[in-house]
C-alpha cells in the first residue's frame, strides 16, 4: 500500500505567504487551452446519456396534467403496449430536483401532485421510441384537492416573512422625507430557467452486491450521492455517481433530479440498466427555476448624491416544502453605504414548479433591479451615474462594520469607465435612422464563498495525477486544477492528468455558487504542498527553498530530476480544505462594472446591444481564457434577463406555457456583440492560499441593469418590469410623443 498523507487547512486567517507567486513553472494565470478541448470539439467527450451498457432499457417520464391526489392510472394497458417492460409508479419518485447542497431527498411522490408538470410515473421499454409513445399514452387519474394560488402577488397567497431575513437599521422613513432626492419604485423580474444545453440524463446500473452506479449530469456529486442514497433508502457507500462531462449546469444540476431516481428505481425493479433522459420540456418543469421577484426599492440622497437611506423589500415565490428562497437582497446588504437601511424578504407559497438556485441566486436579479434604481436616483439628482456610485462606495460593511477582504468597487468602476470611454449624456441625444442610441452602466457585486473540499495528487517521476469528484460544467475545472498542480509541482501541463467526476474519488466542493474553482483548487494546492514538503525533506532542504520546474528539483545550484528522486515510486497526498473564520471575520466579495451601448428602434421598440464591456476583480485569475469565457457567459445572461428571457405561467394552473427553447428566448449569437472583458488582477489573502475568488457568477450581477439603463439613455423609456419587451418600450416611446 502506497503511503498517502493528508495536509489540512482550516481557513481561519488570511494567507499572506502568497506561495504561488514564488513558483517557477509559469502556467497558472495564463490563458492555457482547456486540456479536454480536443475531446469536446471532436465529439469524443462522453456526457451522461452516452454510455450503452448491455441490455439497457429506456425510461420516459410521465407528466401530471393537474394538481391533486393520485387515485389510479391505466398502467395495465400501458404494460400491454409494444416493447413496454414495466411502468414505475414508485412512491419514492421525487416531485422535483433537490435544492443545492441538500444532501437529502426532496419531497417524494407519495400519491400527491403539487404542480402541473410533476413526474408521476416512468414507462420503461425496450426502445426509446416505444417508451416515449407509451408514456404519452399513459393516463394518471388525479382528484383535485382544493383550490390553489398560482401568483405570488395574488392577495390569497400564503406569504411567509422569516424574521432572520428582515433588517431595519436607523430610520428609513425619516431619511426619505428629509432627503433632497428620493426614489420609491417597484421592479419585477420574471420566472426564469437555467436552460443548460444538455438535458438531464441518467443511466442506472445495479451490480450483484447491491451497488448502484449512476452516470448522470450533476454539479455537486458528494451531495447528489447522499441525496440518491436517502431517496432509495440505502447506505451512501452503495451509490457511485459518474459525471466526467456536464453539458452546462447554471444551478439546474446542483440537486438530484427526477430522472436519476426514476432510472435507479427502474433498474432495481428490472435487474437491468435503465436510461432516463429528460425531454427538454421536462427539464423546464421538473428542475428548479429562478423565482420571479417583486422588488420595492427606496433610496434617499442629499444634494451631492450621498445616499442616506436604502430600502430593498422583495417578494419571491416557492412551492410548499422547499427551504430555498431567492436571496434577492444578498448584495444590497453591503454594496452601498447608507446609515438608514431596511431589507425585507417575503416568500409566497404558490403552485408553480419549484424554485431554486439559478446562476448567481440573489444578486442576478437583486443587483440588477438595485442598479436600475441607482441609475434612476442619479438621474433625479442630476449626477453622472458613474460619479453617483463613486460617491457611495462603502469603506466597510455598512450594516455590521466588518472590513472587506478587498474592496475593488471603485477601481473597477474607474477602470471600466476608462476602457469603455464613458461619458454621461442626457437621454434622447443620438439618432441613427429609426434607431435611438444610448449608453448605460451598472456596478456588479457577488458574495464570495468557500466550501469543504478534498483532492488527491499523485506524483511520479514523470508527472502528476489530480483526482477528485469535482465537476467541470464548462467552467474550466480541468484546466485550472491542471494548472495549479503543474505550477506547484513544476511540470508542463501535458504532464498533468486531471481525473474528475467520480464519487469514488476524494470529495471536492463540486460546482456551484462560484465556490468550485477556489475551494477545489485550494484542496489541490494543499495536496501539492504536502508533496513539496516530502520532496524537500528527501533532498534535505527547506520547502520554500525548493524550486520545481520542468520535472526538475532545483536547490542550492543543484538540479535533480524528479524521475531520479522518485524512481519507480508513486507519492500520494490528500489536500483537505475546511472553511473557517476567514469567511466570517470579513466580507468577501467580487466586484465589477459593466457598460453597454444599445440601439432602440423607434418603429418597433426592439433593443439591440451594440457594445458591452465588463471590468471585474476576483482575486487571482487562475486561467485568463476560461475566466474571460465565464464573463462572456454572465454578460450574455444579463442581456437575456434585460431583453428576452421570461417563463410565462398559466394564471389558471401555474403551468409553464413556454417550456421549450423555441418559446423561452435565450440570447442567440446575433443578440450578443463581441463582448469586452477585463480583469483587475489582485490578491485577496482572506480568500484562500491561492488569493483567488469565484468568477462564474459575478458578471451576471448587474449586466442586465447596464442594458436597461442604456435603453433609458437612448430613448427616454424607463423599464421596471423585466425583460424590456417590445410592447413595453413601444408604450414608453408613444408616451414620449
Amino acid at each position, binding site marked *: 500500500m502506497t503511503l498517502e498523507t493528508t495536509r489540512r487547512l482550516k481557513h481561519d486567517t488570511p494567507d499572506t505567504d502568497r506561495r504561488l507567486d514564488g513558483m517557477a513553472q509559469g502556467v497558472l494565470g495564463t*490563458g492555457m*487551452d*482547456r486540456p479536454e*478541448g*480536443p*475531446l*469536446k*470539439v*471532436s*465529439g*469524443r*467527450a*462522453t*456526457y451522461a*446519456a*452516452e454510455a*450503452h451498457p448491455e441490455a439497457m432499457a429506456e425510461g420516459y417520464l410521465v407528466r401530471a396534467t393537474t394538481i391533486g391526489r393520485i387515485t389510479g392510472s391505466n398502467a395495465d394497458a400501458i404494460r400491454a403496449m409494444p416493447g413496454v417492460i414495466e411502468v414505475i409508479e414508485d412512491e419514492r419518485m421525487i416531485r422535483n430536483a433537490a435544492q443545492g447542497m441538500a444532501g437529502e431527498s426532496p419531497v417524494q411522490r407519495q400519491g400527491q401532485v403539487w404542480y402541473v408538470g410533476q413526474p408521476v410515473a416512468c414507462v420503461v421499454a425496450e*426502445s*426509446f*421510441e*416505444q417508451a416515449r*409513445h407509451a408514456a404519452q399514452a399513459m393516463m394518471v387519474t388525479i382528484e383535485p384537492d382544493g383550490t390553489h394560488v398560482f401568483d405570488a402577488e395574488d392577495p390569497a397567497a400564503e406569504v411567509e416573512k422569516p424574521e432572520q431575513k428582515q433588517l431595519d437599521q436607523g430610520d428609513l422613513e425619516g431619511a426619505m422625507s428629509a432627503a433632497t432626492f428620493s426614489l420609491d419604485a417597484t421592479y419585477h423580474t420574471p420566472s426564469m430557467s*437555467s*436552460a*443548460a*444545453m*444538455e*438535458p438531464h440524463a441518467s443511466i442506472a446500473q445495479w451490480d450483484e452486491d447491491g451497488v448502484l452506479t449512476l452516470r448522470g449530469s450533476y454539479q455537486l456529486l458528494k451531495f447528489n450521492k447522499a441525496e440518491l442514497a436517502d431517496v432509495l433508502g440505502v447506505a451512501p457507500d452503495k451509490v457511485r455517481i459518474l459525471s466526467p*462531462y*456536464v*453539458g*452546462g*449546469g*447554471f444551478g439546474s444540476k446542483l440537486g438530484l433530479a427526477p430522472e436519476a431516481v426514476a432510472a435507479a428505481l427502474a433498474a432495481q425493479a428490472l435487474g437491468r440498466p435503465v436510461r432516463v*433522459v429528460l*425531454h*427538454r420540456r421536462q427539464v423546464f418543469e421538473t428542475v428548479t427555476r429562478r423565482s420571479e421577484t417583486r422588488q420595492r426599492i427606496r433610496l434617499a440622497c442629499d444634494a451631492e448624491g450621498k445616499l442616506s437611506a436604502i430600502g430593498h423589500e422583495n417578494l419571491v415565490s416557492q412551492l410548499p416544502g422547499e427551504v430555498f428562497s431567492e436571496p434577492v437582497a444578498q448584495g444590497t446588504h453591503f454594496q452601498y453605504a447608507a446609515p438608514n437601511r431596511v431589507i425585507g424578504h417575503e416568500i409566497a407559497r404558490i403552485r408553480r414548479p419549484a424554485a431554486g438556485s439559478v446562476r448567481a441566486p440573489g444578486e442576478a436579479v437583486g443587483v440588477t433591479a438595485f442598479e436600475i434604481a441607482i441609475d434612476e436616483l442619479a438621474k433625479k439628482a442630476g449626477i453622472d451615474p458613474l460619479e453617483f456610485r463613486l460617491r457611495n462606495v462603502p469603506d466597510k460593511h455598512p450594516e455590521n462594520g466588518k472590513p472587506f477582504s478587498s474592496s475593488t468597487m471603485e477601481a473597477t468602476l474607474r477602470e471600466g469607465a476608462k476602457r469603455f470611454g464613458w461619458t454621461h449624456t442626457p437621454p434622447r441625444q443620438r439618432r441613427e435612422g429609426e434607431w435611438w442610441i444610448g449608453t448605460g452602466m451598472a456596478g456588479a457585486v457577488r458574495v464570495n464563498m468557500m466550501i469543504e473540499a478534498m483532492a488527491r495528487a499523485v506524483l511520479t517521476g514523470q508527472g502528476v495525477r489530480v483526482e477528485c469528484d469535482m465537476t467541470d460544467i*464548462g467552467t474550466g475545472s480541468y484546466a485550472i486544477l491542471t494548472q495549479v498542480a503543474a505550477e506547484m509541482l513544476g511540470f508542463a501541463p501535458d504532464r498533468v492528468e486531471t481525473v474528475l467526476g467520480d464519487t469514488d474519488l476524494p470529495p471536492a466542493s463540486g460546482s456551484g455558487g462560484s465556490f468550485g474553482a477556489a475551494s477545489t483548487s485550494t484542496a489541490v494546492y494543499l495536496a501539492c504542498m504536502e508533496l513539496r514538503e516530502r520532496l524537500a525533506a528527501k533532498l534535505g532542504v527547506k520547502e520554500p527553498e525548493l524550486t520545481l520546474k520542468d520535472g526538475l528539483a532545483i536547490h542550492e545550484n543543484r538540479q535533480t530530476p524528479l524521475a531520479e528522486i522518485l524512481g519507480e515510486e508513486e507519492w500520494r497526498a490528500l489536500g483537505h480544505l475546511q472553511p473557517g473564520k476567514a469567511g466570517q471575520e470579513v466580507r468577501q466579495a467580487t466586484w465589477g462594472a459593466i457598460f453597454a451601448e444599445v440601439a432602440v428602434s423607434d418603429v418597433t421598440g426592439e433593443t439591440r446591444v451594440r457594445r458591452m464591456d465588463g471590468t471585474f476583480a476576483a482575486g487571482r485569475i487562475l486561467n485568463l*481564457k*476560461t475566466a*474571460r*469565457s*465565464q464573463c*462572456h*457567459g454572465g*454578460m*450574455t*445572461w444579463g442581456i437575456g434577463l434585460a431583453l428576452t428571457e421570461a417563463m410565462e405561467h398559466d394564471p389558471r394552473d401555474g403551468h409553464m406555457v413556454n417550456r*421549450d*427553447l*423555441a418559446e423561452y428566448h*435565450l*440570447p*442567440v*449569437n*446575433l*443578440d*450578443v456583440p*463581441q*463582448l469586452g472583458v477585463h480583469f483587475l488582477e489582485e490578491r485577496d489573502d482572506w480568500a484562500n492560499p491561492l488569493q483567488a475568488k469565484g468568477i462564474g457568477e459575478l458578471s451576471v450581477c448587474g449586466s442586465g441593469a447596464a442594458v436597461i439603463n442604456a435603453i433609458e439613455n437612448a430613448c427616454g423609456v424607463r423599464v421596471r418590469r423585466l425583460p424590456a419587451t417590445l410592447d413595453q418600450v413601444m408604450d414608453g416611446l408613444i408616451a414620449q410623443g
Partner: protein
Amino acid sequence: MQFQLDVNGERHALDLDTRTSLLDALRDHLGLTGSKKGCDHGQCGACTVMVNGRRINSCLTLACMHEGDEITTIEGLGRPDDLSPLQRAFVEHDGYQCGYCTPGQICSATAMIEEIKAGWPSNVTDDLEAQVEASIEEISERMSGNLCRCSCYPGIVDAIRQVAREEARA
C-alpha cells in the same frame, strides 16, 4: 425497417423503428454520440450534422429517409489528435465551455463557411449581388440557429472568422 446509412465515409446496415430520428440512429445505434440532443425539436442546433454537404438538424429528420445520402458528423471532421482547422480554432479561442453545443456549432460553421463562399445572402446582407464577407455580423446571423447557454458566442465568432479568413487566403 432495414436500410443503410453512409456516415463519415462508412456504410452501416441498420434495422430500426421507422420513428427513429437520424440523431437517435447516430447516437444510439451507430455509437456516434458526438451529435448532441438538446431539445429534439429543431430549436437548439446541438444535433447539427451535414447531409450531402448541407447542415441540417438531425433530430428533425427520420433515419430511414437518408439511404444514399452522404452524412458527415463531428466525428468525421477530425479526431482529437488530428483536428480540423475549425476544431482547432474553437479550442484556441475557447469557443465552447461545457462542450455540449460544440459539435453542432462546428458542423454548422463548417457548412456555413461554404454557404458564404457560394455567395448565399443572409438576413443581414445589404447587397444581394455582392460577394458576401465573413464579417462578425454575417457569422453571428448565420450561427444564430445554434444556441449556446454558456454563451461562448464571442469566441465562436472569433474562431469562425479566423478559419474563414484563412480559407479565403488559401
